[in-house]
């Protein structure tokens, strides 16, 4: 048993002896967690607003936006200046309160518009929130107008009444359908970390196939076989090496994100189990790649190609939650989608090991097949 461990640890050592690997394996993923976290981030969103000076009602609306932690509100002098800020990305979205807003509200046909750049994820979140804030305001204004029409009196007094009445059921959440996909009590980093963990862990594990190709091509594998070491031991050692490298990286991202960004990974047993299963899939795939490809170059290309394609298809780049139909069904061909689903359950919804058993089972199935093929193929090329 000591020999496979010796071989496995040597592999780990080789990876972390290389400084550039430390960057790609640890720092880059954590950096990605950070930047993606910012993208998911709420308090960092900037909303530009024009027309606050149109009247007390306009001021009311803008103040209500300013009154939350959701976004930093920046008052802008003109519509033109606002457009410019949005286009330059200086603010994530812009709200235009039109000329004569107050009068129109009193007449009952006010309209505000929201500006954002196309395909901007951060803006999408922000505009959704702005819409909900505006519709809350609209509900209040609507109620005030209704009261004014029914019982007479002054609009402003009625508005105060409406506000104090605390009319139920009009608050619109930023994300409204069913169980919230991104619950509000989960930090933005906790949303960002699992997909990045999956992406990088799998990618790194695939690139460890290069080590196997090197070992074979340089004659080291056969030299190992010339010592009193069985081919099974060598194959097991190499497999262990792949797994240890992969797991080490996964744990570094896990603890790194927890310590640096306060990501709460949820149930320990469930997280550990999903992580282990996913790392097994990655290292199994690496074994297969490493025993199939003859040159380092082709192994690198395959590792990057497969690693990135699977990560994208599996919903770790654009969130899986945004997929639908055939694309979503196809995503479940990748281990990433199963990992994503499992982590969503654990991290966002406080799921335990029982909740993620199906995903773990699927991942272990993948791992068994890949390891089986890889080990069989590797022992064949060593003893050939």
């Amino acid at each position, binding site marked *: 048993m*000591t*020999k496979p461990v*010796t*071989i496995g640890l*040597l592999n780990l*050592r*080789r990876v972390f*002896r*290389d400084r550039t690997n430390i960057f790609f394996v640890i720092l880059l993923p954590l950096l990605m967690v950070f930047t993606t976290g910012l993208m998911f981030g709420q308090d960092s969103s900037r909303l530009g607003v024009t027309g606050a000076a149109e009247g007390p009602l306009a001021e009311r609306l803008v103040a209500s936006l300013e009154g939350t932690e959701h976004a930093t509100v920046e008052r802008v002098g003109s519509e033109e200046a606002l457009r410019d800020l949005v286009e330059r990305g200086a603010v994530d979205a812009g709200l235009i309160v039109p000329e004569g807003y107050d009068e129109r509200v009193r007449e009952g046909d006010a309209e505000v518009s929201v500006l954002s750049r196309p395909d901007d994820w951060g803006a999408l979140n922000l505009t959704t929130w702005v819409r909900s804030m505006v519709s809350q305001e609209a509900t209040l204004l609507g109620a005030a107008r209704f009261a004014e029409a029914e019982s007479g009196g002054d609009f402003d007094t009625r508005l105060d009444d409406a506000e104090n009445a605390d009319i139920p059921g009009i608050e619109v959440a930023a994300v409204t359908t069913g169980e919230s996909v991104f619950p509000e009590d989960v930090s933005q980093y906790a949303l960002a970390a699992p997909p990045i963990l999956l992406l990088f862990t799998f990618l790194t594990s695939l690139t460890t196939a290069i080590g196997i190709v090197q070992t074979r091509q*340089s*004659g*080291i594998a*056969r*030299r*190992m*076989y*010339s*010592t*009193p*070491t*069985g081919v099974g031991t060598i194959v097991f050692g190499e497999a262990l090496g792949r797994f240890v490298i992969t797991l080490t990286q996964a744990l570094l991202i896990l603890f790194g994100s927890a310590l640096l960004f306060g990501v709460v990974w949820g149930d320990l047993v469930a997280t550990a189990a999903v992580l282990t299963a996913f790392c097994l899939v990655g290292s199994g795939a690496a074994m297969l790649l490493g025993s199939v490809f003859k040159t380092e170059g082709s192994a690198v290309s395959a590792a990057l190609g497969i690693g990135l394609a699977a990560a994208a298809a599996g919903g770790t780049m654009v969130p899986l939650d945004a997929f639908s139909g055939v694309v979503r069904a196809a995503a479940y061909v990748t281990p990433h989608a199963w990992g994503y689903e499992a982590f969503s359950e654990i991290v966002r919804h406080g799921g335990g090991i029982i909740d993620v058993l199906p995903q773990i089972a699927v991942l272990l199935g993948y791992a068994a097949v890949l390891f089986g093929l890889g080990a069989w193929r590797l022992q064949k090329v060593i*003893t050939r």
Partner: protein
Amino acid sequence: MPFLEVEGISKSYGSTKVVDNVSFSIAEGETYGLLGPNGAGKTTTISIIVGILQRDSGSIRINGKEHSVTDKASKAHIGFVPQQLAVYPDLSAVDNLRFFARLYGLSRADARRRSEEVLEVIGLSDRAGETVSAFSGGMARRLNIGIGLLNRPGLLILDEPTVGVDPQSRNAIFENVKKQTGEGVAVLYTTHYMEEAERLCDRVGVIDGGQIKAEGTQRELVSAVGEDDTIVLRMDGGRESAIRTLEALPETKQVSGEGSEITMLVADARAVLPQVLDSLTQTGTVLRSVEVREPDLEAVFLHLTGKALRD
């Protein structure tokens, strides 16, 4: 009893027989050279003996015991230096040594100690912690050999260990090998350099097309081929009488003179030389120099295979 006995091993890839009924044996402390051109089957033969390649037929005994690819006990006796630089380029010399020492079953402490010893032997003690990729070709070759010494092998197998090595490193490698044989290690050495085989090997097997064409000491091979030795004598005057004297010797095959130089052909120059010198002294000839030219393995190889050793 020889330490290594190889009997009729063969190996085919598809329909080509790469190793064809090869037999030889090596005693303790003996160096046996497999001399052959590129593609002769040296590496294939060695891989079978080391136990990393399955043979089609034949038998191998190491220290009297039957050996196969799965035989760990026999593998423990073998030190293997492959033709390729089979070391981790991104690790240090000492890390490479310790790793392989562990694979030979040494404990962590023993692996550490033995690695230090080997570093001393291969002259890399002061570069032990350096990454191998920063080594010169010769240093990397020495490390490659060092790994083969870790388990104190009874049989050391070296596959063209001096390829791409400077003369200084080459000498160091020869010294290492000689030191091993001095300690009773049986050495199997492949090369396509005739000089190496001549300098290092007690016996040589000439291999071509997967077959051992001839085997023996250099002398035996040369005489089996029937090439004559040449003795070149230079003197001060009196050439005619000297030629007559030499022609009278029974071993002489041919004598010819040119200027102050006499060239004679004999079967075995070393055996005849004392007699030659005696008879010349008696006739009062003053010799200025004597040179013996023995036919080399190059000539043997050419004779046996009809082709030159190097392409």
